[in-house]
């Protein structure tokens, strides 16, 4: 048995893992289905998203040039890396120039692909993963087992053991306590890090914006607090403009976590004051996947895999992943594939070659992944192409039947001989029939040994004594009494999906959505007065205040202290929202409001009722002239431990929005 199959058996026999995986699958599938109900036109969006991604990949060089030029204009330092070694070198150089000792890192699958942490640690630089799930697997010296929920393979008892042992807290399986512990430890990391490091969900060619979507707030911390920010992205992760971005953002979080929008949808344009931003754009085999001239394989067979937006929906839908989790997807050299699941079994061999080609054989081609894909990638077709040896290794195709066991390959090739010679085929059917009667004279079923594969869990039917083709000779031109065909009166067409348009006004819809996420909304004619009352009711008397947000003389009279300077000790931040989104309950914050909406435990936003817009697509242009902006959708949260929703990770635990309706009318 090969090493991959051994690993499969280990996973299947690991009861704890199986429970964790079933949990992940069930909750994710349900969450996704529910989230898509709110966009009845999702099928059409999915087709548009496919076209948007296809267009980007077909014109990648032009879009990259535009994106890079725009970033340079925006004051971002841009680097291009051909492969892992170059990317690591670039990042090491930045670390050396800034004499960095500590790097706070948010999730980046590309950094896993190039094995960045290991390289940095070898140079004596401490790297701390700050996504809760990533932090957990880092403490366990493991790799993430899922691209969205890195600790999906663990149960809370294992996390409790780990935190007890490594962080010295008393053993507890209370998930909010575990999360609060991580928040406390990692808060110090954010404040002391020399460099913040992040991945990139999308780059926008037209504006140069870097879009990062997160829930916990660590993505905002690493891009906002440390003096240097490094963003690492795969070169294919571009969209042409902000409209296309908002289309993809309507699909990505729904597919990934079942959210309409993630808590934090950030758009970074220019570095903040006193901040340096580096953008590292990685090729590492991507150009080869899309360009026949580089791959030596005609027609770029795996090009479509570059459309992927890394939502992880295909992992959750995949019955193979459900048994294995990411750690079982291993190469011939036993290293864990950076990308697991259906898309991983294509891009891991596609980017990294021969070592991972056998992964594609572990699939029934059932197509659940294709159905789940928000950009409609034909994953089963691509899997058959990897099997057909079309994942290029340098300039060489791998062999046909890649990853197939020699016995099966030989058997199929023999079968080809028979199937192309009908007479021989019919004779062999007779032999098979005779053989199966000898093996099993008294039963319709044959019990074959487990080593045949088939015999492992099922019996094989006996070959028919008389095949259909033999019976056909006897039955030739069998004409029964003809019946007139019954006509079909029933309308069997699928029920059309019509969803009642909501009649509620934007403020009500906004309130409903944000309240559902655990946020609070108050309507008021005088936000300053409302906020003073709120603060008093909570016994709070000091706020971090965005300038020009509240009536400051009124605050003074009420005895509320305020400052405009960032101070991580203050518990309340008050900001002015540029707009609200009715369909998701989000508020848009930018530039001067970024710290006040992130560092304190309580975030209060003032929003004018007239500024509530229907949806992200109506608001996305507002970010154009900002240095950085973030759509905030509810309080900071995580589901990294056993998929249990926990509020308040790195960002605020509470969000209160005061809707100012004094000028509406």
């Amino acid at each position, binding site marked *: 048995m090969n090493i991959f199959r051994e690993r499969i058996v280990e996973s299947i026999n690991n009861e704890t893992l199986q429970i964790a995986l079933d949990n992940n699958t069930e909750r994710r599938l349900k969450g996704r289905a529910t989230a898509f109900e709110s966009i009845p036109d999702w099928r059409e969006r999915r087709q548009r998203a496919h076209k948007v991604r296809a267009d980007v990949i077909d014109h990648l060089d032009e879009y990259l040039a535009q994106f890079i030029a725009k970033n340079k204009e925006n004051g971002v330092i841009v680097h291009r890396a051909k492969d892992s070694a170059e990317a690591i070198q670039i990042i090491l150089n930045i670390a050396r120039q800034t004499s960095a000792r500590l790097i706070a890192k948010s999730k980046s699958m590309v950094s896993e692909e190039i094995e960045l942490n290991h390289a940095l640690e070898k140079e004596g630089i401490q790297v701390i993963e700050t996504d809760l799930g990533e932090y957990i697997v880092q403490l366990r010296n493991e790799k993430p087992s899922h691209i969205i929920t890195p600790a999906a393979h663990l149960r809370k008892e294992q996390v409790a053991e780990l935190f007890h042992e490594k962080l010295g807290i008393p053993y507890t399986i209370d998930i909010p306590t575990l999360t609060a512990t991580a928040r406390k430890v990692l808060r110090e990391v954010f404040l002391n890090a020399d460099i913040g490091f992040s991945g990139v969900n999308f780059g926008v060619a037209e504006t140069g914006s870097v879009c990062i979507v997160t829930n916990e707030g660590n993505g905002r911390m690493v891009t906002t607090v440390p003096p240097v920010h490094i963003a690492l992205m795969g070169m294919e992760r571009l969209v042409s403009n902000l409209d296309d971005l908002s289309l993809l953002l309507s699909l990505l979080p729904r597919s990934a976590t079942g959210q309409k929008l993630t808590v934090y949808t950030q758009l970074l344009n220019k570095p903040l004051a006193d901040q340096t931003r580096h953008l590292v754009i990685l090729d590492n085999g991507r150009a080869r996947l899309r360009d026949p001239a580089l791959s030596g394989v005609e027609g770029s067979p795996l090009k479509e895999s570059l459309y992927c937006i890394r939502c992880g929906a295909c992992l959750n839908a995949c019955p193979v992943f459900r048994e294995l989790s990411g750690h079982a997807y291993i190469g011939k050299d036993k290293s864990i594939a950076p990308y697991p699941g259906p898309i991983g079994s294509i891009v891991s061999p596609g980017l990294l070659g021969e070592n991972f080609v056998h992964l594609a054989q572990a699939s029934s*081609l059932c197509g659940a992944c294709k159905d789940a894909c928000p950009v409609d990638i034909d994953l089963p077709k691509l899997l058959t192409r990897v099997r057909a040896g079309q994942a290029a290794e340098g300039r060489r195709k791998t062999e046909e039947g890649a990853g197939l066991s020699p016995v099966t390959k030989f058997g199929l*090739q023999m079968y080809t001989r028979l199937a192309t010679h009908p007479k021989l085929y019919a004779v062999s059917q007779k032999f098979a029939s005779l053989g199966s009667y000898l093996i099993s004279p008294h039963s319709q079923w044959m019990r074959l040994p487990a080593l045949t594969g088939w015999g492992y869990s099922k019996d094989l039917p006996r070959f028919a004594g008389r095949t259909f083709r033999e019976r*056909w000779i006897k039955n030739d031109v069998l004409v029964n009494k003809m019946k007139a065909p*019954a006509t*079909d009166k029933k309308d069997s067409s699928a029920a059309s999906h019509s969803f009642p348009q909501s009649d509620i006004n934007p403020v009500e819809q906004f309130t409903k959505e944000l309240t559902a996420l655990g946020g609070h909304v108050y309507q008021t004619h005088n936000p300053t007065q409302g906020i003073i009352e709120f603060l008093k009711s909570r016994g709070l008397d000091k706020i971090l205040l965005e300038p020009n947000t509240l009536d400051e003389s009124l605050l003074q009279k009420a005895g509320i202290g305020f400052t405009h300077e960032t101070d991580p000790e203050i518990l309340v931040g008050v900001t002015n929202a540029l707009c609200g989104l009715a369909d998701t309950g989000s508020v848009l914050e930018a530039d001067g409001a970024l710290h006040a909406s992130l560092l304190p435990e309580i975030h209060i936003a003032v929003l004018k009722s007239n500024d509530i817009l229907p949806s992200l697509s109506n608001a996305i242009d507002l970010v154009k002239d900002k240095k950085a902006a973030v759509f905030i959708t509810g309080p900071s949260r995580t589901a990294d431990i056993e998929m249990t929703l926990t509020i308040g990770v790195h960002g605020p635990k509470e969000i209160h929005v005061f809707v100012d309706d004094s000028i509406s009318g």
Partner: protein
Amino acid sequence: MTTVQLFITCLTDSFFPQTGEAVVDILHRLGINVDFAREQTCCGQPQFNAGLRKDARAIAEHTIKVFENAIGDIVTPSGSCAHHFRHNYLELFEGDSTWLPRAKAISERVFEFTEYLVDKLNITDLGARWDGTLTYHPSCHTLRGINVDRQPRALLANIHGATLVDLPNAEECCGFGGVMSVEHPELSAEWLKRKISNLEASQAPTLVVTDAGCLMHIAGGLSRQKKSQRVMHIAEVLNHQ
């Protein structure tokens, strides 16, 4: 009189000839003349799915030659073979100016059996009778490969006397996957276990499928576990009077 070609499929031919007979019976009753080209063998799907494209091409070329001069639509009691003709033949011969048009001409003539009845003949009531409870497993390639689902369900809904119940998590693969069931027997076994426990939960004694692959796989699992439920191809159920 309309004539159709029957593509029997290798599994049905060798293991379940009675399914083929049921297909022929039903079509005859509807006044359709059925022709069976005796040179046919296999569509080449196992080779294609395993990644052996050269082999898959050789079989596809043979099959194209067998059917290209035969009259009428090609009807097959298998969603996965229909999927193979319809989609994979185009992939196999992509860029081949001699074979692609020939492959395309064939692929456009192929219909899965229930799809043919409902979409081409506009028939959903075959006057079939069944005493007892039935449940339906949508085979992956029928459901997601060629988007055929309302057709078999409509046909089943019109069986007189039968009670149709839902199979929990019906859309999950049974774990056959052709070569996968041999290459990765451990994975295949887990899915099969789940499918069988869902079948038990449905409490239906009879499971209906549209593909000999799933039939052989699920029935083989039931036999190994000594369960009493049985699996039947939809053609046999629809032919029951």
